[in-house]
C-alpha cells in the first residue's frame, strides 16, 4: 500500500492534465482520474516492473475513450471551446491566457487519436514505445499520428487549415 502511494501519488497532477486536455471539462476530467485511481488500486497486482506511468495512462486513456463512445451514443455534446478562465494561472497576463486558450482550442480540433499521441509525447514526456503501449498501437502508427498531429496543428496555428476543417465537422457530428 505504501508502494502504491509512493508510486502513484506523484503522477496524479499529470493524469489530471492529460484528462483535462482530452475532455476539456474540469469536473468530468477529475471524475475520470478518480475512476482511474480506483482501478489502479484494485488492479495493483497487475502492475509489474518499475515505472507506473504508462500503466496509469493506459487505464486513464481507455476510460476516456469509453466515455467518448458512451457520450456520442447518448448524444451529449462534447465541449470543444469551453475553456474556463479559472483553468489558467491567476497571474498570467491576459494576452498569454488568450494565446494558451487559442492553442488548446486548436488542439481540440485534431482527431482524437492524433491528439492523444501529441499529448502523451509532447506534454507528458512518454517515450514513443510507452505511447505505443498506452494506445495499444504499433510504434510506426505512433510516429505517423505524431507527424499528422503536428502538421495539422501547425496548419491551424498558421491559419492555413481548409476553411471548415474536416475534424470540426467530425467533432460536431458527435452531438
Amino acid at each position, binding site marked *: *500500500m505504501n508502494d*502504491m*502511494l509512493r508510486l*502513484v*501519488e506523484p503522477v*496524479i*497532477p*499529470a493524469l*489530471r*492534465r492529460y484528462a*483535462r*486536455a482530452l475532455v476539456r471539462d474540469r469536473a468530468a476530467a*477529475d471524475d475520470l*482520474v*478518480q475512476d482511474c*485511481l*480506483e482501478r489502479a*488500486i*484494485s*488492479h495493483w*497486482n*497487475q502492475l*509489474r516492473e518499475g515505472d507506473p506511468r504508462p500503466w496509469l495512462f493506459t487505464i486513464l486513456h481507455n476510460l476516456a475513450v469509453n466515455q467518448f463512445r458512451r457520450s456520442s451514443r447518448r448524444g451529449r455534446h462534447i465541449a470543444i471551446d469551453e475553456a474556463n478562465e479559472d*483553468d*489558467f*494561472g491567476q497571474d*498570467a497576463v491576459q494576452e498569454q491566457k488568450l*494565446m*494558451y*486558450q487559442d*492553442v*488548446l482550442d486548436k*488542439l481540440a480540433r485534431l482527431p482524437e487519436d492524433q491528439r492523444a499521441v*501529441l*499529448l502523451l*509525447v*509532447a*506534454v507528458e514526456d512518454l*517515450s*514513443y514505445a510507452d505511447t505505443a503501449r498506452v494506445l*495499444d498501437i504499433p510504434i510506426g502508427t505512433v*510516429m505517423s499520428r*505524431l*507527424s499528422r498531429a*503536428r502538421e495539422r*496543428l*501547425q496548419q491551424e*496555428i498558421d491559419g492555413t487549415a481548409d476553411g471548415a476543417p474536416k475534424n470540426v465537422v467530425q467533432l460536431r457530428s458527435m452531438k
Partner: protein
Amino acid sequence: MSSRPITEDDLHGYVDGVLEPERVADVAAYLEDHPDMNRRVAAFSDQRDLLRRALAPIAEEAVPSQLDLAGMIRSRQRRASPVWWAIAAMLLLSIGGLGGWVMRGSLQTSPAGLAALAQEAADSYHVYAPDRVRPVEMRASDSAQLVQWMSNRLKQQVKLPDLTGSGYRLMGGRLIATSHGPAAMFMYDDDHGDRLVVLTRPMASEQSAPMAPHSGGDVAGFAWADGGMGYSLMGQAAADTLKPIANEVRRQARSI
C-alpha cells in the same frame, strides 16, 4: 556526420529531445542545409513549448480532495477488513453446508478423472479470477518459493508454466483443496487484465490422457494428463486462443 539519411522520425525525435547526441548533431547539420525543414522543425518545437506552457497550470493546481489517494486506499482496506472476511467465510461455510445437504444425492455421480480436474479448474477460476484483492496466495515475485511449496504438498515436482510467449504473465498461485487431494493453481493475466488459471494435481485414475476440451459455466478450456499428473487450463478467452496456450503448458511440463 554519419551517412545514415535523416528520417521523418529523426526530426520528431529531435523536437522531442530523445535522440542520441551523435544523431542530434547529424540532424542539426542537416537542418542547417535545409532551411525549409529547419523552419518546419522550429515551428514544431514552438508548438510543443506552447502546448506545455498552456497545460502546465493544470498540473500545478492543488489536487482536489476527490483525488486523495491515501483516503481511497484506506476506504478500500476498510471494505476488505477482517470482519468482512469473517462474514464472507461464514456465508461460504453455511452455503457449503446447505449445498452439501442438497447435493448429497448427486455426489455419487460426481465426475472423476479429467472431467473432475477440469471442473476443479473452472471452479477455481470462478472463485479466484474475479478477486481483485487477493486472487493468489503467493505472488509471482516469490515464484521459486511457490514452486517449492506446491511440489512439497503435491509430492511431485511441479513445473511453473511460463506463458509470457503467449502474452500472459504469471500473477502467482495458490493451493486448492479438491476431493482428490491438494492441487496447485497458477493464475496468469494479459495486458487487458484477462485472466486464466492452470490447475495441476496427481491423478489417481487416467494417469495419461489426451488433451480434450471442457467447459464449466462461462469458462472453458482444456484438460489432459501426462505421466500421472493432470493439467487443466481454464479461461474466458475463445477456445482457439486457449488451445495453443494449453499446448505450450503441456510442452513445458513434458520437458521437466
